């Protein structure tokens, strides 16, 4: 059962081959038995899952089922879940039982999906390896000594290990796509504003977006359709009808114009990763697509711009964590300053503190123009690059990550090196465009991801292209040996 995709499971549930309760129990057992190796789950919500599964079974019996009714999934621990711990991978929220549900949580529940538990993640979504979590690092199921990527490392690892057919993730600089690539699964970050951020603990407000992490594009389409949509509680959420992503999966790709940015295939890209990506692009040629070279001249500025904007926004977003109304509070504060300084000092990990300090510095008197304002101007340039490129091409492709999964601890001491893992993904967030990663091969037994970048609200086209590719390749069906 755990080898099946959402589409296959949905068919099985409707046919009565098995019940959602059986499926849920199976996966809960699997998680209990195998997650010790991965550490991908922070909180398992057994009782709640079984209750939801039983309710789903009733709906299935009544013939009142949708595509996700009874389908189990794992939920990144960044989404508020009422009555359930929502830790954001941090000691600061280790004791935080959210008093309300995030919109994404509500929507998936309304669709009948069954939440198995909350997944591990880099602390406050800050990281590219899931090594900064208060709950310990997550392992890559393809090689337990390597990182799964981050910040949605727990979600990626769990889906790759077939602990669940789907998981939710969030992506601020690549946090869905990069772990999807490193773990050999499919992940999509939709256009900024496509999915509501209400109840999604904020890291960098103008960059954060939620999205599904699955094994196939077909499954991602099903999940995204349920997650997306207007929400009046989020001022940055766009009021625009959600496309029927599943309906357009089958379209042929003849004439699809694919652009390959020369800046994505230059220095810093591992040669084997490059070769795998080239091979993947050849498949698209065979499917009828036209491939041409393009340029995104300001690519090299994306990571530095991001590392001003994101820390600046998060330094402000994280000020609410002060030990007063919820979350971690230090023992016996001697005065107000002590309460703040120690609660935050003890509650936050080192990477979070680093980013808060960079952000505070970038916004501080005398530095605002030089850093923050400058970065926002560069952001405009980066966006303009993409807008111009999309005048000539429909989809932009390239590697998701410059290297396959690296070893645990390998980059942990050098923040800047770690930051460069996101070199191909970050610009997409700065521009607010949709981006996707799909499995495209292996290098030394480690997965390689192909990134697809689309124009604003063009998720259908990305999912369609990915789906067609997955019809003629089988990278997305590979399972790590230990988790078969």
């Amino acid at each position, binding site marked *: 059962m755990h080898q099946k995709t959402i589409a296959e499971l949905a068919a099985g549930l409707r046919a009565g081959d098995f019940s959602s309760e059986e499926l849920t129990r199976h996966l809960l057992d699997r998680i209990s038995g195998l997650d010790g190796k991965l550490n991908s789950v922070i909180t398992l919500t057994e009782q709640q899952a079984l209750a939801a599964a039983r309710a789903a079974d009733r709906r299935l019996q009544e013939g009142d089922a949708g595509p996700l009714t009874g389908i189990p999934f794992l939920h990144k621990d960044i989404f508020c879940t009422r009555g359930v711990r929502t830790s954001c991978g941090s000691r600061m929220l280790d004791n935080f*039982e959210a*008093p309300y549900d995030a919109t994404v949580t509500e929507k998936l529940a309304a669709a009948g999906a069954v939440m198995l538990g909350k997944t591990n993640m880099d602390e406050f979504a800050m990281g590219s390896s899931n090594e900064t979590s208060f709950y310990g690092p997550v392992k890559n199921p393809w090689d337990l000594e390597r990182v799964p990527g981050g910040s949605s490392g727990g979600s990626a690892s769990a889906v790759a290990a077939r602990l669940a057919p789907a998981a939710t993730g969030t992506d601020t600089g690549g946090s869905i796509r990069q772990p999807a690539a490193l773990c050999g699964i499919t992940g999509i970050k939709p256009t*900024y*504003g496509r999915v509501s951020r209400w109840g999604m603990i904020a890291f960098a407000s*103008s960059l954060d977006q939620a999205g599904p992490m699955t094994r196939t594009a077909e499954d991602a389409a099903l999940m995204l359709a349920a997650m997306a949509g207007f929400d009046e509680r989020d*001022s*940055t959420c*766009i*009021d625009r009808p959600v496309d029927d992503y599943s309906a357009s999966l089958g379209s042929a790709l003849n004439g699809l114009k694919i652009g390959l940015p020369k800046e994505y295939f230059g220095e810093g890209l591992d040669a084997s990763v490059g070769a795998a990506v080239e091979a993947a692009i050849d498949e698209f040629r065979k499917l009828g697509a036209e491939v041409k070279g393009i340029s995104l001249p*300001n690519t*090299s*500025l994306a990571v*530095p*711009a991001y590392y*001003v904007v994101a820390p600046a926004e998060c330094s402000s977003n994280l*000020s609410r964590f*002060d*030990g*007063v*109304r*919820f*979350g971690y*509070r230090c023992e016996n*504060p*001697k*005065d*107000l*300053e*002590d*309460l*703040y*300084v120690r609660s*935050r*000092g*003890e509650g*936050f990990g*080192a990477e979070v*503190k*680093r980013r808060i*300090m*960079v952000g*505070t*510095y970038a916004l*501080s008197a005398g530095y605002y123009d*030089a*850093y923050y*304002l400058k*970065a*926002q*101007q*560069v*952001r*405009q*340039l980066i*966006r303009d690059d993409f807008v111009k490129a999309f005048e000539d091409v429909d989809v932009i492709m390239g590697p998701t990550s410059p290297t396959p999964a690296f070893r645990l601890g390998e980059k942990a001491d050098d*923040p*800047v090196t770690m930051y460069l893992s996101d070199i191909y993904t970050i610009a997409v967030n*700065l521009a*607010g*465009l949709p981006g996707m990663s799909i499995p495209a091969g292996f290098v030394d037994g480690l997965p390689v991801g192909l990134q697809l970048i689309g124009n604003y609200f063009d998720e259908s086209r990305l999912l369609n292209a990915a789906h067609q590719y997955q019809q003629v390749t089988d990278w997305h069906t590979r399972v790590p040996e230990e988790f078969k």
Partner: protein
Amino acid sequence: MALDTEAVSKIAYLARLGVDESEYDTYARNLSDILAFVEQLNAVDTEGVLPLAHPLDEKQRLREDKVTEADQRELFQKIAPRTEAGLYLVPKVIE
């Protein structure tokens, strides 16, 4: 931009972050590296370029002036570290 431990101390205070003295050097080094890295931005000519604060060219939506929230004090204070008589308590603040 190189930061020394005094700068680290000032920034940490602005952000109310407890940093152990023994860690100051590491933070100073890491922060300096990061700032040196982002300095690249200064090499770019951005004369006349409008800063992009939002990827979308949308404008702010307005909400009708209606009371839609009920009293949920009990629910919210269940997760609070320290309350009394419906108030959140902090160490005494002197004005």
